[in-house]
């Protein structure tokens, strides 16, 4: 069953224009400021990839925990998850297209005795092979999960959902290890001599927070103006998504600060290099900005109950959180690739336009490929009638 009413042709055209215009500007920029374009591409594709992965994570977590509340809008995270092969392919192109951007590739200054493991681990061929493995594993497991959920619309067999619980458990175990490693390989390795054992969970916290924000925005969009989730996605769902967004905003702040405080406290030079580059000098205000966008605003705005049930408030907070996610990734990548001064200009705006347009196009294509509501899921009735309290 295909529903073409999810997005109007004019909106689809706007998304395509954003993507193509942004892409053209970036293509021109490749000849003018290649490092800066690549940094923007890394931030953008990692953003997109973690949204897709976050959708799969949301679906898997709710299957494993036996959740029924989310079924009414489950097709949204499912559609995000089906973006994994394309987002992952783009990620691989960006990574392999400019491997020399990674410090270990040209600027190796470790001694073989102390850093023997790091040297082997970051061998370019092994590093690239791992990247392919991560993307293939995620795409396969997430695709399997979503395909079975969609098949249930026709077959109706509850055994498909029961089997999905087991696939979800497998996905979660694989995800926990591979995403942690991927964030180390792709983001931390930009500064190969620096390390943090909290890097994986720090990236996870930003990922799940941004995914919740995107699910909120898309759900509110899809229920507006007689959209396919009109009368399906209600204030109870919004309230619970708001609680999760509030909780994971606090989690992001908690993890961010835990990483910062451990490094600040022990004050060991090879660990402090990351934060000295980012909190001393012109990057300082940008870091403060990321904290305001990712925690201060969502925390104080979403604390009262009425705010979490108000579509307008939730939409704005979710947009703020997504901006915060971009700034967070910007602070991870740009100081490592471009140095001491924050830069923001036409290339960043073009990359953001391209990212927004591509996400919209990919999402609505994936969402239209199945029924907007999993109508034969055993938990759908529960999802339509529960109270968030």
């Amino acid at each position, binding site marked *: 069953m295909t529903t073409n009413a999810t997005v109007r042709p004019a909106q689809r055209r706007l998304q395509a224009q954003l993507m193509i215009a942004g892409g053209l500007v970036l293509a021109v920029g490749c000849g003018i400021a290649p490092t800066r374009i690549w940094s923007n591409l890394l931030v953008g594709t990692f953003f997109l990839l973690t949204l897709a992965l976050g959708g799969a994570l949301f679906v898997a977590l709710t299957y494993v925990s036996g959740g029924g509340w989310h079924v009414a809008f489950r097709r949204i995270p499912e559609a995000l998850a089906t973006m994994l092969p394309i987002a992952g392919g783009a990620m691989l192109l960006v990574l392999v297209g400019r491997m020399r951007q990674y410090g270990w590739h040209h600027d190796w200054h470790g001694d073989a005795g102390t850093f023997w493991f790091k040297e082997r681990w970051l061998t370019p061929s092994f590093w690239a092979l791992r990247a392919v493995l991560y993307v293939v594993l995620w795409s396969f497991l997430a695709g399997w999960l979503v395909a079975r959920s969609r098949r249930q619309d026709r077959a109706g067999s509850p055994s498909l959902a029961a089997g999905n619980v087991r696939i979800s458990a497998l996905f979660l175990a694989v995800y926990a290890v591979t995403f942690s490693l991927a964030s180390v390989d792709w983001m931390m390795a930009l500064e190969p001599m620096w390390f943090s054992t909290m890097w994986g969970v720090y990236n996870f916290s930003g990922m799940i927070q941004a995914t919740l924000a995107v699910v909120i925005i898309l759900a509110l969009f899809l229920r507006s103006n007689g959209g396919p989730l009109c009368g399906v996605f209600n204030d109870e769902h919004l309230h619970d998504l708001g609680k999760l967004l509030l909780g994971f905003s606090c989690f992001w702040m908690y993890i961010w*600060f835990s990483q*910062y*405080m451990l490094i*600040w*406290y022990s*004050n060991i030079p090879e660990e402090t290099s990351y934060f000295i580059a980012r909190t001393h000098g012109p990057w300082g205000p940008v870091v403060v900005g990321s904290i305001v966008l990712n925690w201060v605003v969502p925390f104080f705005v979403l*604390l*009262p*109950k*009425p705010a979490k049930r108000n579509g307008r408030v939730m939409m704005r907070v979710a947009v703020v959180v997504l901006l915060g996610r971009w700034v967070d990734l910007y602070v991870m990548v740009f100081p490592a690739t471009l140095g001491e001064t924050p830069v923001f200009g036409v290339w960043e705006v073009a990359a953001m336009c391209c990212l927004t347009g591509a996400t919209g196009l990919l999402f609505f294509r994936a969402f239209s490929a199945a029924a907007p509501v999993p109508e034969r899921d055993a938990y759908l009735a529960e999802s339509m009638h*529960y*109270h*968030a*309290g």
Partner: protein
Amino acid sequence: MSDRVLVATFEHEDDLLAATAAVRRDGQRIVDAFTPYAVHGLERAMGLRPSRLTWVCFFCGMAGALGMLWFEHWTAAIDWPLDVGGKPWNSMPSDVPVAFEAAVLLAGFGSVLALLAVSRLFPGKQPPIIDPRVTDDRFVLVIAQSDAAFDLNVITTQLADFRALSVEERVTLPGGELQ
């Protein structure tokens, strides 16, 4: 003002919810509802105003965080300056974990104590229970008989539509508590 009330007992929470909403829609004054566990949506059906306990929680949490930040700063930088690892005396990052814990502790204790104080609960208190089975598997709705809109026959029939197990008249004690 009369202190007579009507006590209706239900077997299912859905019946209680529907009856509460219907009775309130007809202009009756609802004294209280008693349930074995928190019934979601009941506060909306009863038309209760939003709880003020969240504000107690928020301000206790803020007081805990800010008070502890000030106290740590005073002990480590003002009253008896301590050199820890060569760091400045007013090292804020090291104050944050304790301030966070103090915020959680005061918010938690503050909310519980405020709740106990407002509902006049204390150890050893023996509150009169309207029906012993509300502690187990029965749901009770108490409606005031004072209002002009009150008509015993109409309401009894109406409650029967919501499968009320029993509807009886009671008198409140002088203290306002139900017996």
